[in-house]
């Protein structure tokens, strides 16, 4: 009786197996992508008010700490209260439709809900104050916000990314006075970094402890 499979069948079978393999691998990759952050890198996030860091930081030149007041003293950088916005916007552009939600919030007393752009998992205990104190520039993690009309995440914020710097902090350090300086660029990073590690007494051993971020 005749064979059901031709001689070529073997080849097809092999192809099918190969296809299966590819399918599985791509499936895994897709799943990893799915379970990444809520908003992707360099993807702007719609906010109740289209706040422009470019305008406020780049053009006007407001210092980061004017709004993110507790960045030097606390784990949280701090979000500006609406009162802070109103210091200017009770006068300026108060009639602009763009600012409507802000004005409404101020009048109704229902605070604005900004959408989070840089989000870390809940089991990660990141502290702004210590990074600022040890000379990690805002721009190092948040990018050139002075060039962002709308805020977006510029770094992966993955553990691997954190560790890159924690393994070898030198390359990311800058003098304390330049921390809030968006445009600052080093000349000889390595030499400067090593010097700063000394002056700021950064304990390299401790930087790689699990306990420094997870509690």
């Amino acid at each position, binding site marked *: 009786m005749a064979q059901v499979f031709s001689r070529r069948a073997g080849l097809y079978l092999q192809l099918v197996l190969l296809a299966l393999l590819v399918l599985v691998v791509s499936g895994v990759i897709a799943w990893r992508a799915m379970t990444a952050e809520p908003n992707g890198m360099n993807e702007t996030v719609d906010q109740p008010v289209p706040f422009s860091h470019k305008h406020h930081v780049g053009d006007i030149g407001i210092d980061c700490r004017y709004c993110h007041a507790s960045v030097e003293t606390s784990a949280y950088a701090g979000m500006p209260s609406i009162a802070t916005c109103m210091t200017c916007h009770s006068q300026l552009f108060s009639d602009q439709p763009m600012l409507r939600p802000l004005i409404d919030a101020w009048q109704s007393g229902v605070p604005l*809900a*900004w959408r989070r752009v840089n989000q870390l998992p809940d089991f990660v205990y990141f502290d702004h104050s210590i990074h600022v*104190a*040890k000379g990690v520039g805002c721009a190092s993690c948040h990018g050139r916000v002075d060039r962002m009309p709308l805020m977006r995440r510029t770094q992966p914020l993955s553990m691997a990314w954190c560790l890159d710097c924690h393994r070898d902090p030198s390359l990311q350090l800058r003098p304390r006075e330049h921390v809030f300086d968006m445009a600052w660029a080093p000349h000889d990073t390595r030499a400067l970094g090593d010097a700063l590690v000394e002056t700021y007494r950064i304990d390299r051993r*401790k930087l790689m*402890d699990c306990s420094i971020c997870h*509690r």
Partner: protein
Amino acid sequence: MSSMNDDSWAPWRARLAGQRGHRYWRALEDLAADASFREHVASTMPAWSQVASMDRRGFLKLLGASLAMAGLTGCGRPPEDSIVPWLRMPEGQPDADAIFYATTLCMAGEAVGVLVQTHQGRPTKIEGNPQHPASAGATGPQLQAAILDLWDPDRSMTPRRLGDIGTWDAFAADVGQWRSRFASHGAGLRILSGSIRSPTLQAQRKAWLQRFPGAKWHVHEAIDDRQALAGAQQAFGRPYRCRYRLEKADVVLSLEADLLDGGPAHLAYAWGFAQRRDPERGTMNRLYVVEGTPSATGTMADHRWAISSARIGDVLVEVAVALGMKGLPTLTPSGLSHARIAALARDLQAHRGRGLVVVGACQPPHVHALAHLVNAWLDNAGKTVVYISIDDALPGLAELCRDARAGQVETLFILQANPVYDAPADLDVSASFAKIRHTVHYGLYRDETAHICEWHLPASHPLECWSDAQSCDGSRSIAQPLIAPLYDTRSPHELLALLLGDIEQRGQAIVRNQWKALDDTAWIAALRAGVLPEMESDEPDLPVPADEVLRSWPLRQGQATELVLLWRPDPFLHDGTYANNGWLQECPRPLTQLTWGNAALVSPALAARRGLNTGDLVTLKVRGRALTLPVWVMPGQAESDITVHLGYGRTLAGRVGSEVGASAYILRTQDALWMAAGLELVRADGHVDLASTQSHDRMEGSESVRSSSLTALLAGAAMESAPTPPSLYEATQSGDYAWGMTIDLNACIGCKGCTVACQAENNIPVVGADEVRRGHAMHWIRVDRYYAGSPDAPETVHQPVPCMHCEHAPCELVCPVGATVHDSDGLNVQVYNRCVGTRFCSNNCPYKVRRFNFLQYADLTTESLKGQRNPDVTVRNRGVMEKCTYCIQRIEKAHIQADRENRAIADGEVVTACQAACPTRAIQFGNLKDSGSKVRRTRMSQRHYTLLAELNTRPRTTYLARVRNRHPDLGEDA
């Protein structure tokens, strides 16, 4: 107002039917979110809708600024959360990580000054206030657990009239009518309250009585020191309260007085006592304890003698005779050997003015009176014991019930008392109250009493309202709110103001007005410090006792063999007030290691004679009243005594506390509040599996707890058995710090304060009775209790066991994913989010200090409980191993603080939660690399030893051995 009971509610009630625990709350959340439900509510009862919405917004405000609650996210796309900034930035530094405020808490009959930690406006943790004499920086389990009551979802949230939702305005209207009726004189108007500790409330009481001369104010406490006061009355002719100076006493004789862990001022006493227990610093005191049922104080004694509680008085008489006092009654021997009495008397005699005789509040008045005589005779009065004069007692519950039955009471306000549950059974409170026209209950919970009252009014939690308090030692302090009331509640002062017709005045104004003597700077200073400066110089007067009591000494009736029933307050639940607190219910009781229920404590001898085992059901019959509950065979219990603890068997305590254990109040009568002779013990059929956390009570040859006698120690006996064995691996730990802990077993009184403090600090879940039975308890620091010697007169020792943070940690070796590793400070850290839950680490831990989330124990659904969580500590989900971290969040905070300032962490800058809570400072924590640190010094001690040193795990947690200071003449006759 429409009733909650009409049919229009049926569909909603159906949706809640059968839901319990967090499911119930989830269902409730859904309901609240349901629009149709909201409008139904709005249409039928406007009041409730207000309440509900207020509640939600309250939480929004509350949690707004704070970032997302810590919690493990499983796999799957993480939720996108939003940041809600302040509208107007409040005063102070609202975005700071944590702020402490000083306030005062009244718990278990004492007012203690505390510091409360808040995170973005959420009170999360309570610490002792070092400046407050009643705390001296320490807290106990109850104070630690108080924070949970604030966030308890079972709290009463709204006024109720006959069970329906009501409003304060409606109540005010009712009161208006009643007041008009009482306008003239106020006859038939009564208030029943717990004992009054607040000067403001005291003043309001006076004002109220002036306003209504015919009215009466009654006071009821299920657990008080009225027998002690009566004793003082007998001796001095007027009531005095004793204040002991344990730090000054060389020889202490305690007759059933649980100085260290029971009753008011025990925190201060415990510290005073501990100061005299370190042989390397100053001379050790000697403590004799004679008691019928074991107490924490008894376990610390150098000589503990078990004698039936009914014969304690006789022992005191014998001591007095041996001291050479005259005019004493002649009695049948108490049963305590002559040698012991003689030695004791010699010791007291030899330390005149530096000795102390203390009698427990449960002893009858005449024993107290005799104790006053003895202290005077030994010239201790005014030196180791001072007398504080107090006001005469107010009328009690008995008078109230009598008048009520006589129909003389028309309106009754019950302020934060629960007589329906905790009154003596023979008073029959509910029947008497039924005769009262208007009854109003005001309290934190809608409890047993609330349900028989016309009105129920929700009380603000002490952390929500302004008040003030006076502690037993006379020091006064202000209580300030840590948070705006979560629900539609009022403070007692606001309620009193309302009763006096002042519906405007708010708490702060009332309290401030009480202290108008203070100018604003002094007021602010008082708030900051948490205690007021002594106003009048209180020179304690030195009353002279008269010895009438000796003539009228009651001769003991009944023969020695008959059984005696003793009531004792539960060490945690007290009189039952704290029954709905999961932390307290689940914390193993110091001497029994029992959780979630009470039992009849029976001596081993009696148990053997009656063939009873732990867990067997027995029926206790006394004077025609009967109660059935399980037996607990209690080593060290006097043979004829049987002890039951109060505070259990609540019927309407809440989801946690209802139907736990059996209520011993059922047996209690006015004339026998603490002790009843003629008890019948009948075996009932049935056996209960009691939820105890420790099954093996003896050391079984292991040297886990080492102890020595003072003489041996002075002779130079070292406790460390062997030098640390060598190791093939070089020391890995490399950082600037080497954190270590030392626990002094000579100071630990086993109060479990550390356990609850740890639970509060580290978001440790409550698992419930069944899970405890199944060996799933979650406490990070347990306190082991061992017995040595004969079961009838055992030596009891306590040993707190946190994670040892071994330098050669067996757990780290076996974890396949590296979820438990060392950090450069030498800590053994547990990385929850890396843990996959093989549990090999726990198997390989010789100290078994690791705890596993076998199920989803952390409650992630009950909103209010989230409010209590410490945001610096991850909330662990199911399937994850956890353990003591040496409070790494506190260490890291100190690290960051110090690094920001470019300096090293100072000694004492990091204080672990257990260390902070400990009343006797038994726990030392610090940097072992710092030669000047306290913990380093303890390592040099002669008493220093390592637990299971032979395994060469090199623990960072080590112990100081226990020392007994026995009377030389008695030798080992402990």
